[in-house]
C-alpha cells in the first residue's frame, strides 16, 4: 500500500525527469508515451492504494528533508480520505488530459518540454495533496506555480505569453508570502509543521491568533485560487495551451487554495471571523468573475472567469463550514470545467485557431460530437437540474442559507444572483459558438481522435457527478460527506425549505437560460459600450494595480538605483576619489621644477620648525 502510494507520487516525477533530461534524444512518440503512461500508472497506483485511505488513513515517511535545531521537516505523505479523493481526481483528470494533450500537441516540435512540465505539474500537485507537513505542501505549492509559469509561457516566442506566465507566478507568489508567514507562525506556535499535529492542537490557541493564522492561510489560498484581490493572473493565463488551461487553471491548481483551507479546516474553523472572510471573498469573487465572464470575447477567457467564479463558490462553501460541499463542488467542477476547456480547445481547432466567440457561430454543424460534449459541460456549469454542478452548487447555497444570520443570508443572495449570471453567460457562450452561422473566415482544422474521446468520460462524470454526494432529498446517501467523515455537513433542513431552495435554484437557471436565449439565439452584433468594455477589462483591476503598485514599485526602484546607488553612494565615493586626486594635482603644482621655489619650501619648513620651537621655549 505504502509502495503504491509512493509510486503514485513518484511516477509522474520520474516521467517528468526522464522527459526533461532525455526527452529530446528519444524518438518521437516515446516521450508522449512515457508522460501519459506515468500519469495513468500513477492513477492506477492511487486506485490500488485507495483502500488504505479509509479511517485514519495511510502515512509514509520517505526521508528527513531537513532538520535543524527543533525544526524538522520530512518528506512524508498523508493519505487520508480528503487526500485520497483529491488524488484520485487529480490523477484521473490528469490522465485524461494527458491523453487529450497527446493529440493536441501532436505537431508541436517542443512537445517533450510540454510533457515534462505537465508531468512535473502532476507531481507537484500530488505533493500538495499528499504532503503531511506544510513545508512539503509548500514545495508542491511552489512547484505547481513554476509548472504553471512554464506552461502558460509555453509558446514563449510571443512575449505576451511569457509575460502572462510571469504575471501568474508573481501574483500567486504574493499569496505565497502569506502562506509562508502562516507556516512560520504555525511552527513557532506548535514547534512542528505537521498538518495533523497542528490541526489536532489548534484548540490550544487563543482566538486572535487563530484568526490571524487563518487569514494568512486564506491569503495563500487566494493567490493560488485566483480570488479577490489576487485574481488578475488567471484570465491572462489562458495564453497557455488548452490542456494546460484544462488541467492547471480549471481542474487542479486553482483549487489548491480550496484544498489548503479544507486541509487546515480544523484550525480555520475555530475562527468565525476568518470563516466569514473566506465566505465573503468567495462570494464576491464568484460575483465579480461572473460579471466579467459576461463581457469576455475569447472563449477561454470566458471559461477562465467562470472558473474563478466557481472556485469562489468553493471558498464560500469552506466559509460556511461545509468541507464536503467544497470538495463536492471541487470534484464536479474539475470534471465539467476540464471538459469545457478541452471541448473549447476542439472548438478553437475547428474554428481554425480562432479564439473570439463573436467570430464563431454554427460550430454545431462542424462537429456534432464536440457540440454535445460542450453542451454537457455547459449545463453542468449553468447548474441545470440533476447535473453534477447543480447538486454541488445547491449544497453550497443551502449550507449558506442554513447559517441563518443576516450576513450569511446576504451571501446566499449574492450566490443565487451569481448562479443566475452563470446560467446566463453559459448559454450566451453556447449560443454564440454553436448557434447560427459561421462568422469567421478560417478553415476548420482536423480533430485528432485523441482530442475527443477522453472528453467522454469527463462528460459522464460531470453529468452524473451528483451521484457522489446525492442528497437525501433525491434519494441519495451523501456518500462523499460520509467518506470525508463530515456527516455534519449534511444539512438537516426542513423538507419545505429544501424544496424552496431547490426551486429557486432551478428558477434562476431557467431565468438565465431564457435571457440568454432571447438575446443571443440570434446573433446581432458585437457588444460595445462603457459597461462591456469595463467588464471585458475585468473591472479594470489590471490598470488599477499598475497605477497603484507597479508604477510606484518601478519608481522607487529607479530612485534606489539612480538616486541612492548611483547618485549618493557611488557619487560620494567617486567624488572622494576625485577630491583626493585633485589634491594631488594641486600638490603637483608645488613641484614646478624650479630650484628656488623648492628652496622656499625649505625655508618655510625651517621657519615653522623654529617658530614652533620658539613657542615651546617661551612657554
Amino acid at each position, binding site marked *: 500500500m505504502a509502495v503504491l502510494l509512493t509510486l503514485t507520487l513518484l511516477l509522474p516525477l520520474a516521467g517528468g525527469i526522464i522527459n*526533461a533530461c532525455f526527452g*529530446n534524444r528519444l524518438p518521437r512518440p516515446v516521450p508522449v508515451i512515457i508522460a501519459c503512461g506515468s500519469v495513468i500508472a500513477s492513477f492506477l497506483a492511487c486506485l490500488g492504494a485507495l483502500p488504505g485511505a479509509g479511517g485514519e488513513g495511510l502515512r509514509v515517511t520517505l*526521508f*528527513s*528533508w*531537513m*532538520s*535543524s*535545531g*527543533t*525544526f524538522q521537516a520530512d518528506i512524508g505523505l498523508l493519505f487520508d480520505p480528503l487526500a485520497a479523493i483529491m488524488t484520485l481526481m487529480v490523477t484521473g483528470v490528469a490522465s485524461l488530459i494527458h491523453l487529450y494533450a497527446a493529440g493536441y500537441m501532436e505537431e508541436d516540435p517542443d512537445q517533450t*518540454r510540454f510533457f515534462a512540465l505537465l508531468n512535473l505539474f502532476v507531481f507537484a500537485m500530488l505533493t500538495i495533496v499528499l504532503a503531511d507537513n506544510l*513545508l512539503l505542501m*509548500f*514545495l508542491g*505549492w*511552489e*512547484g505547481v506555480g*513554476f509548472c504553471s*509559469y512554464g506552461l502558460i*509561457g509555453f509558446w*514563449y*516566442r*510571443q*512575449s505576451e*505569453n*511569457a*509575460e502572462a506566465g*510571469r504575471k501568474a*507566478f*508573481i501574483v500567486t*507568489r*504574493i499569496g*505565497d*508570502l502569506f502562506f*509562508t*508567514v502562516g507556516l*512560520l*507562525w504555525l*511552527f*513557532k506556535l506548535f514547534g512542528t509543521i505537521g498538518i495533523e499535529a497542528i490541526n489536532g492542537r489548534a484548540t490550544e490557541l487563543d482566538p486572535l491568533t487563530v484568526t490571524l493564522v487563518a487569514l494568512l492561510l486564506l491569503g495563500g489560498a487566494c493567490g493560488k485560487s485566483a480570488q479577490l484581490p489576487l485574481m488578475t493572473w488567471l484570465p491572462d493565463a489562458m495564453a497557455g495551451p488548452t490542456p494546460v488551461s484544462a488541467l492547471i487553471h480549471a481542474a487542479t491548481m486553482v483549487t489548491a487554495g480550496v484544498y489548503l483551507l479544507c486541509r487546515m479546516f480544523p484550525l480555520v474553523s475555530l475562527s468565525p471571523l476568518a470563516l466569514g472572510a473566506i465566505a465573503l471573498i468567495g462570494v464576491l469573487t464568484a460575483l465579480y468573475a461572473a460579471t466579467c465572464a459576461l463581457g469576455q470575447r475569447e472563449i477561454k477567457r470566458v471559461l477562465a472567469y467562470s472558473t474563478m467564479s466557481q472556485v469562489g463558490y468553493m471558498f464560500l462553501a469552506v466559509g460556511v463550514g461545509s468541507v464536503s460541499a467544497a470538495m463536492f463542488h471541487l470534484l464536479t467542477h474539475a470534471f465539467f470545467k476540464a471538459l469545457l476547456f478541452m471541448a473549447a480547445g476542439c472548438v478553437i481547432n475547428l474554428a481554425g485557431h480562432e479564439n473570439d466567440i463573436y467570430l464563431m457561430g454554427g460550430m454545431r454543424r462542424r462537429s456534432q460530437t464536440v457540440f454535445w460534449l460542450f453542451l454537457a459541460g455547459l449545463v453542468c456549469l449553468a447548474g441545470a437540474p440533476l447535473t453534477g454542478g447543480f447538486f454541488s452548487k445547491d449544497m453550497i447555497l443551502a449550507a449558506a442559507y442554513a447559517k441563518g444570520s443576516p450576513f450569511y443570508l446576504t451571501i446566499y443572495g449574492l450566490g443565487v444572483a451569481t448562479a443566475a449570471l452563470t446560467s446566463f453567460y453559459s448559454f450566451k457562450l453556447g449560443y454564440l459558438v454553436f448557434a447560427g452561422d459561421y462568422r469567421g473566415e478560417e478553415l476548420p482544422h482536423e480533430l485528432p481522435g485523441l482530442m475527443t474521446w477522453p472528453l467522454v468520460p469527463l462528460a459522464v462524470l460531470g453529468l452524473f457527478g451528483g451521484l457522489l454526494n446525492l442528497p437525501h432529498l433525491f434519494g441519495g446517501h451523501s456518500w462523499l460527506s460520509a467518506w470525508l467523515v463530515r456527516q455534519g455537513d449534511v444539512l438537516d433542513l426542513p423538507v419545505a425549505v429544501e424544496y424552496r431552495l431547490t426551486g429557486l435554484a432551478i428558477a434562476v437557471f431557467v431565468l438565465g437560460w431564457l435571457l440568454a436565449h432571447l438575446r443571443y439565439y440570434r446573433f446581432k452584433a458585437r457588444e460595445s459600450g462603457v459597461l462591456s468594455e469595463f467588464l471585458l477589462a475585468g473591472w479594470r483591476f489590471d490598470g488599477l494595480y499598475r497605477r497603484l503598485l507597479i508604477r510606484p*514599485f*518601478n519608481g*522607487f*526602484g*529607479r530612485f*534606489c*538605483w539612480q538616486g*541612492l*546607488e548611483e547618485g549618493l*553612494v*557611488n557619487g560620494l*565615493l567617486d567624488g572622494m576619489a576625485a577630491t583626493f586626486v585633485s589634491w594631488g594635482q594641486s600638490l603637483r603644482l608645488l613641484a614646478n621644477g624650479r630650484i628656488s621655489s623648492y628652496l622656499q619650501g625649505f625655508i618655510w619648513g625651517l621657519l615653522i620648525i623654529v617658530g614652533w620651537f620658539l613657542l615651546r621655549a617661551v612657554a
Partner: protein
Amino acid sequence: MTADIGTSLPLLSLLLWLPVAGAGLCFVSYRSAQLARWVALLTALLVLLLSLGCLLCPAGPDGWMLLTDRPWIEAFGIRYSLGMDGISLLLVILTAFLQLVAVLISWDQEKYPALLFGLLLLLEAGIIGVFLALDLVLFYLLWELMLIPTFFLIGIWGYRRRVYAAVKFFLFTLSGSLCMLLAIISLYLVHGEQTGSYTFALEALKQTQLGFGQEMLFYLCFMAAFAVKIPLFPFHSWLPDAHTEAPVAGSIDLAGLLLKTGVYGMIRFAFPLFPRAAEQSLPVLAVLALFGIFYAAWIAYLQTDIKRIVAYSSISHLGFVVLGLVAWGQTAWEGSLLLMVNHGVTTGALFIAIAFIQKRTGTRELPKLGGLWKSQPNLSAFFLLFSLASLGLPGLANFAGEILVLIGTFGSHPLWAVIAVGGVLFSAVYTLRMVQGTIWGPSCEPFDRQDLGRREWLVLIPLAVLVVLLGCYPQPLLDPLQLPVSLLLHSGGLP
C-alpha cells in the same frame, strides 16, 4: 583544545599549501599553457579530494575535527594555527569545488592562461586559509591574500570597465580590512597588557576583558572589514562593478566564495571576540540586512545587464544570510550557513550560464537578448534551473537555506522574518524578468549556434545535480554544522 590530531598527515597545511605550490608551478611554467592547465586541474582536484577526505575526521567534543598549531613569528606572538570544524569544513569543500569548476571553466582561456591558473590557485589558498585560520594575524594575512589574485582576475581578464572595477574592489576591501588590522593589533595590546602574554591566538583573545566602549570600537573595526566583504548596505557599491566586469572564473570566486568569507569572519571572529558589542549591534545589522535585501532587489529589477542583476541578487541573498545570523539561534545560523553554501553553488552556476550565453550571443544586455530557448534549449534549461534555484523555488538549493533562516528568525524576531519574506517575492520579480528577457520572447540571433559543448556539459551537470540535491536533501550539510554552531552560539555569552 584537543591535541594535534592532524599530525599523522598534516591535512590542514596540505589544504593550504598545495594550492600555493600549484600556483608556483603555474607561474613557473608560464610558457606552456597546457602544462599550467593540467597542473591547475590536478591541484584543484587534489584539494577537493583532500577536503572531502576531511569529512572522515571525527569531531572532538569542542567541535574541532583537525587542529594545527605551531610557532611562526614569535617576535610578534603570531602562531601558525589552523583548525577545522564543521563550518570550516563545509566552506572549504565549497571552495575546493567551485575552484575546480573555475579551473574547468577557464580551460580555453587564451589570454595568459598560466597566469590565470596560478592566480586561481593562489586565490583558493587564500580562501581556504581564511576558513581555517585561528590566529588573527594569520587570518588577516590570508584575508588579504585573496586581494591580489582577485584584483588581477578582474583587471586582466575582465570586461570593458575592468580597471575601474578592480581598483574599486581593491580599495574597498582594503579599507575595511585595514580597520580590522588596527583593531587586531589594539586587541592584542590590550590582551597583552592584561595577561602579560602577547599573542594573536583567537582562543586567548576571547578571554580579554574589554570596556564596553572599547569593545564596541574594536567590533566596529572588525565589522568594517566583514561588512564590505559580505557586502552589507551601504558598503556594497564595489560588488556590482566587480561582479559585472570580472571574467566568469572571477565572478564565481567573488560571489561563491569571497562574500562568504565576510560572514565567516563575523561568526568566527567578530561575534565570539566581542559578544556584548555584537549583541548591541544586532538590531542595526538586522536593519541593514533587511534594507539590503530590498534595496538590492529593487535595483536588480531595473538592471539591463544580466550579470549585474545576478550581482545585485547576491547582495540581496547575503542580506538573508546576515539576517539569519542576527536572529541568533541554532536553526537560523544553520540556515545562514547552508544558504551561504547553496548561494555559492547557485550563483556560481548562474554566472557560468551567463558566460556561456555571452559567449554565444556576444551580449549580456536584456534588450538585445531573448528567445534563447529556440537555438540553445539545453543551455537555456540550465539557466532556467539556476535562476529558479536563485529565486528560492522549494526543492532547489537556495530555498532550504532561506526557509531555515526565516524559521529561525521568526522564532526570535517575527517582524524581521515577515519583512524578509517579502524579499522572496522581490527575488522572484527580478529573476523572472531576467529569465523572461533572456530565454523567452522573440529570439535574437546568437552568433554561435552551437548548443553546449562537452566540457560545458561537464561543468553544468554537476552544478545542476548539486543545485537539486542541496535543495532536496540538505541534511548532510546540516549535520556537521550542528555542534560547532551550538558551541559558537553559547560560548559568546548571549542568550
